[in-house]
């Protein structure tokens, strides 16, 4: 594969597609990964009152706090979408999105959601062990998985179960007794609702003898995490998910998986190192892994924003589009995270996805209604923004893409937007739609709309 094509594939998988500033950069995975050193935390939500678990008769103060928090989540959602589409920090953001799906939480408090998101961002390319320790002590996680209620003599196993099943070892690699015993180790892991910080409630911690994964000891929560990290299966499980996110829904053959997992494990779970290994391997650029991954809704929208360098005219439109497509940042469906691949595509979602470019770049208004999740307190249910226009500097794009002839221009735009060449018939449709004259002031816009409306645009 040519280095230019490699660059494109890398941007499609590790970012949200080629962007205008990419023009000046070559294919250089090392330099590119290195550029991710900068960490830009989200900082749009003030602390204020942190709403506690739902009580039977919430006071007015609690209700106000809940209501403020819902608004905060919307704000946070918008500012994260902006940051996801900032080419300067994109690889770290794309990894933050990965960990947000891996450690999927619906955090009720906007402040705690922001804090958790920043924890994910801080460790996104660091060591998985550090990330695991930090997330396990993260107040949003402790609240979401009921660890505030996990006390000596009345353990709550919710966190321990998801830790083993979804975050580290995976199903089939632990026993129910492992869950029971490790839950006891996490008793007393709590947070202070005023400061929003982790704290250890020693009085409710069970420091008795536990048996975990065949070992006996007075294990603390930290000990349990270390034992989990000493198990190669954890490297294998996380590697499998990284593979799915960056490479393919089909897992690789056992040999490759074993060698990747071993590398990850031996590096001390160095995330950046393993990504560098993936991005510089030859198989990453093998045709069977290129141009065939179905974009998640967030990837689709972030891609459209990135590639047009556009911004939603009405901030709430971003949220509406996420809802209508079925993936809202900060609101994963459950602790298992979002589905992937063909699960995103059905008749109605494909029709909507294919009409998005026309609506966002042209007519501006959609007729689709997004679903309500049933929760009267969920502010996102009230977002019914039908004007989802993007503000785009078409002059800038025309300058970049208009060539001597219409066909050359179309080829340049197709190469820039699509992960793989369009089917012949589909390209013809775009050609007919865009017309043959580059002097038409709408030419570039029509070409963008055309290619972004093809099934091929659903792939990265």
């Amino acid at each position: 594969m040519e280095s230019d094509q490699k660059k494109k594939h890398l941007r499609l998988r590790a970012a949200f597609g080629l962007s205008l500033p990419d023009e000046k950069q070559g294919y250089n995975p090392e330099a590119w990964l290195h550029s991710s050193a900068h960490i830009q935390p989200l900082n749009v939500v003030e602390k204020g009152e942190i709403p506690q678990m739902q009580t039977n008769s919430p006071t007015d103060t609690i209700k106000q706090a809940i209501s403020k928090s819902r608004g905060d989540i919307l704000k946070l959602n918008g500012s994260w979408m902006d940051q996801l589409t900032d080419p300067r920090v994109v690889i770290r953001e794309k990894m933050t999105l990965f960990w947000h799906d891996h450690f999927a939480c619906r955090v009720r408090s906007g402040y705690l959601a922001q804090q958790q998101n920043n924890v994910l961002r801080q460790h996104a390319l660091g060591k998985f062990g550090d990330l695991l320790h930090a997330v396990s002590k993260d107040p949003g996680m402790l609240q979401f998985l009921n660890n505030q209620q996990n006390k000596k003599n009345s353990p709550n196993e919710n966190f321990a179960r998801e830790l083993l099943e979804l975050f580290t070892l995976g199903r089939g690699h632990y026993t129910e007794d492992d869950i029971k015993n490790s839950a006891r180790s996490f008793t007393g892991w709590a947070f202070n609702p005023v400061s929003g910080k982790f704290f250890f409630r020693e009085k409710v911690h069970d420091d008795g003898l536990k048996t975990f994964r065949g070992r006996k000891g007075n294990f603390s929560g930290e000990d349990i995490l270390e034992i989990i990290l000493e198990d190669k299966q954890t490297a294998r499980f996380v590697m499998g998910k990284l593979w799915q996110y960056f490479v393919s829904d089909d897992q690789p053959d056992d040999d490759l998986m074993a060698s990747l997992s071993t590398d990850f494990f031996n590096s001390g779970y160095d995330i950046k190192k393993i990504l560098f290994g993936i991005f510089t391997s030859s198989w990453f650029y093998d045709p069977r892994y290129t141009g065939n991954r179905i974009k998640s809704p967030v990837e689709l929208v972030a891609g459209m924003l990135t590639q047009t360098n556009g911004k939603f005219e009405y901030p709430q439109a971003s949220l509406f589009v996420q809802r209508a497509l079925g993936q809202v940042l900060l609101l994963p469906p459950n602790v298992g995270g979002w589905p992937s691949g063909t699960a995103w595509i059905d008749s109605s979602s494909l029709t909507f996805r294919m009409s998005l470019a026309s609506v966002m770049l042209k007519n501006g208004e959609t007729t689709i209604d997004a679903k309500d999740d049933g929760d009267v307190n969920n502010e996102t249910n009230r977002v019914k923004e039908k004007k989802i226009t993007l503000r785009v500097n078409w002059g800038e794009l025309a300058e970049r893409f208009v060539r001597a002839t219409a066909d050359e221009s179309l080829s340049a735009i197709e190469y820039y937007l699509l992960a793989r060449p369009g089917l012949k018939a589909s390209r013809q449709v775009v050609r007919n739609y865009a017309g043959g004259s580059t002097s038409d002031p709408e030419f570039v816009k029509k070409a963008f709309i055309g290619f972004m409306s093809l099934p091929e645009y659903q792939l990265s």
Partner: protein
Amino acid sequence: MKTSRRGFIKSSMVATAGTLMIPNFLKATGFESSGRLQQQGKILVVIQLSGGNDGLNTVVPYRNDLYYQYRPGIAIRAADVLKATDELGFHPALSKLKDLYDRGYLAVLNNVGYPNPDRSHFRSMDIWQSGSDAATYLKTGWIGRYLDSNCGKSLCTAQAIEVDDTLSMALKGDVIKGLAMKNPEKFYRAAHHHFSKNIPGSSEVNEINDSSLHYLYKTLAETSSSAEFLYAKTKGKINSAAYPQNEFSTRLKTIASLIRSDVGTRIYYVTLSGFDTHANQQAQHQRLLAIYAEAVHAFVDDLGEDTMNDVMIMTFSEFGRRVRQNASGGTDHGTANNLFVVSKNLKRRGFINGSPDLYNLDQGDLIHQVDFRSVYATLLNKWLEVPSEKILNGSFSMSDFI
């Protein structure tokens, strides 16, 4: 009657099919013998009440002192209850549902839920839609898995239709997904958008050797054919039956029109939202119950007795509400709830498993007695006549309302 009806569909389909521009590659994969034409069987309509319907104020235990003690401000007064038995009656807004009850068209199952109930809307809805237990996270829905195991390779999407713009997880299978649309005309227009109507010819699509791209083009072609089919079948057929003027009624009317047009769909899915009544619930709840009951009644009337032999409506909500009212004149998230089944030839009708037990509560919540998956198992095995074990990942005892 069955055979002649089936025969009619077959012949009319062949006649229509000629005029449809079915992409060749679909023909090659067996469009003519697609699942929806194989048999015209029973039809299931699923109504989802989103937000957690307050079951205790829907079917009211009006002789139970505890009910009035727990709900001093919002209980339905015994004098207002539409009494059905010595113990139970309906909310006054449900006179139309009471009428169906009187005609023997209604079965009410009380205390339906699942072990370790989750009080979060999204998680509990997830559990109901996927048909999992509280500790399992599935990414497919129970109706989707019905499609997966009972449909051939092409055009199965129209076997299950959700009347909405977006498709719920309930209708998503691993391989096959149902179809979401508000009405055939809107769907037809959306599917014949400038870029989707120009489907490449069969040869080019058949040459796609990448499975993702093939899946996309195949979905596109199926969408287009389904849209054409549904539009052609329903076009010009005006349904003049009287329905109340609201969105939910309109959706049921759409379903009635589709059933009448013999489109062959086995499962319809529709949602009524707004049941999350945390504060001052009475007016809101009354309004929603009236919308629900009037729409269902109009739908049953519209279909008529003959068709109602083949149609069953199942109504559920993701959870009931707490037994005790809260301080804001509302109710918070609860657990077990009642579930309604409407059909003509119910084997058992009325209240088929007694009243909710307000004496034995679990931290203020009703304790479930019937697992919702045994209702699904009953509908799948006895109504849709397909084995339910694989779809539900387990075997559940069946109810005897069918």
